[in-house]
């Protein structure tokens, strides 16, 4: 076994991204029409997707008075950084939330990736006699579940995890879908590589860690992104298991509470004709939303190419 064989190019990242080969044919009228429609529609739809983000950013940079007077718009009105200054005037809460979320995201993604790739690797090995049993054990959980109430009672009461960050951290470590996705990715590792490792006398774990993992970068990037998104965007389990028992809420749940204080007010006057002028600062809510979301969006450009191939491979047989 030569090391050069191990470095065989491994190309899944091209799936779905490679530009179609330009066809050497003359454009006729219908080509031009279809192509123009495509460019225009795609542009409009992309703007439709972006616009709410732009409005949110603009609102966070506007003065409260301008928003109250003329509502949210596309451009900042009466530019002001007051909302951000306000957030960081008493930064303890937001920094605490950041720390909780970052620690959970980093450790959760790392540990989750490790377990998922280990499991995906073992389940992919055709010579592993228990692969079908274990696959079924994992897959069955997507078919039938106890539902929210029994799970909640079990985790909060029997496991005693109410008010414990572990209730959130542990439950986000893996999903059946991500394990299946990893298993599908493993198919792209040629079996001879595993064989050659065996011939060289490497143990199963070493074959995994030293031969397979380095070839799995697109898979690790894709699944890592899904895990990171899961942790970063988490508010649901926090609302169930943490509530107000912890001082520092995960970031999105913190945002959820900021928003919901206002929502409670909004709902209580929804039917009447009272105008809700006493609501907490609109710009502050938008600035909090920007602060809570920013970092995960910055991650995206680095993983875009892997991400596209990742969903493609895992999509149909999910």
């Amino acid at each position: 076994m030569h090391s050069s064989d191990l470095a065989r190019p491994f190309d899944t990242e091209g799936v779905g991204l490679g530009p179609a080969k330009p066809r050497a044919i003359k454009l006729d009228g219908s080509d031009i029409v279809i192509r123009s429609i495509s460019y225009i529609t795609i542009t409009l739809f992309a703007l439709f997707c972006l616009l709410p983000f732009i409005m949110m950013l603009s609102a966070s940079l506007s003065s409260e008075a301008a928003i109250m007077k003329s509502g949210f718009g596309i451009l900042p009105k009466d530019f002001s950084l007051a909302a951000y200054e306000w957030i960081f005037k008493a930064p303890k809460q937001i920094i605490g939330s950041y720390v909780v979320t970052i620690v959970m995201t980093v450790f959760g993604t790392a540990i989750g990736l490790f377990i998922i790739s280990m499991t995906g690797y073992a389940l992919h090995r055709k010579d592993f006699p228990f692969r079908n049993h274990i696959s079924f054990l994992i897959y069955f959980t997507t078919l039938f579940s106890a539902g929210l109430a029994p799970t909640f009672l079990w985790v909060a009461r029997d496991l005693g995890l109410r008010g414990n960050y572990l209730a959130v951290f542990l439950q986000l470590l893996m999903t059946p879908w991500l394990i299946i996705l990893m298993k599908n990715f493993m198919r792209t590792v040629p079996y001879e590589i595993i064989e050659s490792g065996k011939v060289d006398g490497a143990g199963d774990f070493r074959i995994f860690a030293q031969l397979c993992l380095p070839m799995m970068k697109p898979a690790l990037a894709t699944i890592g992104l899904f895990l990171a998104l899961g942790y970063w965007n988490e508010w649901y389990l926090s609302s169930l298991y943490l509530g107000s028992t912890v001082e520092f809420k995960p970031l999105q749940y913190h945002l959820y509470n900021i928003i919901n204080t206002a929502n409670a007010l909004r709902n209580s006057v929804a039917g009447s004709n009272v105008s809700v002028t006493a609501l907490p600062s609109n710009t502050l809510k938008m600035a909090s939303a920007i602060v809570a979301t920013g970092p995960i969006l910055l991650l995206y450009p680095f993983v875009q190419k892997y991400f596209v191939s990742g969903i493609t491979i895992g999509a149909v047989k999910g």
Partner: protein
Amino acid sequence: MSGTDTARGPKSIWRQLADSKVLLLMCVPAIIFFIVFNYMPLPGAWIAFTNFNYRDGIFGSPFVGFKNFEFLIKSGQLWTLTRNTILYNLAFIVLGNILQIAIAIMLNEVRLAWFKKLSQAAMFLPFFISSVLVGVIAFNLLNYDTGALNALIKQTGGDPIKIYSSAGAWPLIIIMVHLWQSTGYGSIVYFAAIMGIDRSLYEAATVDGASAWQRIRFVTLPSLKPTFIILVLFALGGIMHGNFGLFWNLVGNNAALFQTTDIIETSVYRMVLSQNNFTTSTAVGLYQSLFGFALVMTANWIVRRINKDYALF
């Protein structure tokens, strides 16, 4: 190679265990995870048949048979929840797939690489944000005092609308928000399927004098049919399961909108968290799980008959 395992015949289970102990150990963390968080809560579904109280626990609480289900059926609640969940999902599946295919086909017509990459990135963006943020954005656009929509209406001299108390408007809003969030992401699969179409089919069609529209109509669309059928069937299998985060963050506890917006998930969440009602919520959950299970099995059975390779099991 000599001397290694060349023995014929079935190995004993102990031999198999010994041979694959490392692989088995590598699966242990995942096995423990699913047993602890997915299998251990299963017996708790018994709560659906009891008048549960904390003191007596799950199996000590008085048995009431199907009374919890009877209540749900008689009050009409189960019907409303089932109807809303299924109708929303149907709209999501039908409109979502049409839009995803349209976007994928148009994206394939785009030749500028930078434009493709940039527009794709913009279309993915909504998929990356938390549903809390989706709720913020909707509020930003729709609220009575400062919402962008009402700001626009006021500017043009109209009277602002109280959207957060008009139940009739919400199916449209929720469907729009869902499409906004998931179309870019969902179009990837169709786009990849288009990339996989044999280029010579297009060349042959062009030689035969097919226009661009005819190539889409007679080459691209038929080639997407298998992907479309499989995706729709699996989506139909999951039609009993709603997108909780979306509905909760858009509507939440706003009872004025429940008639048109309450789905199984939101109702169960509200029962557990704000009413501490474990019996009815477990009953609804069990009903959802069983019904959903039957649907997935049916969907998989049909997929299997179409193409065995695509079946889940």
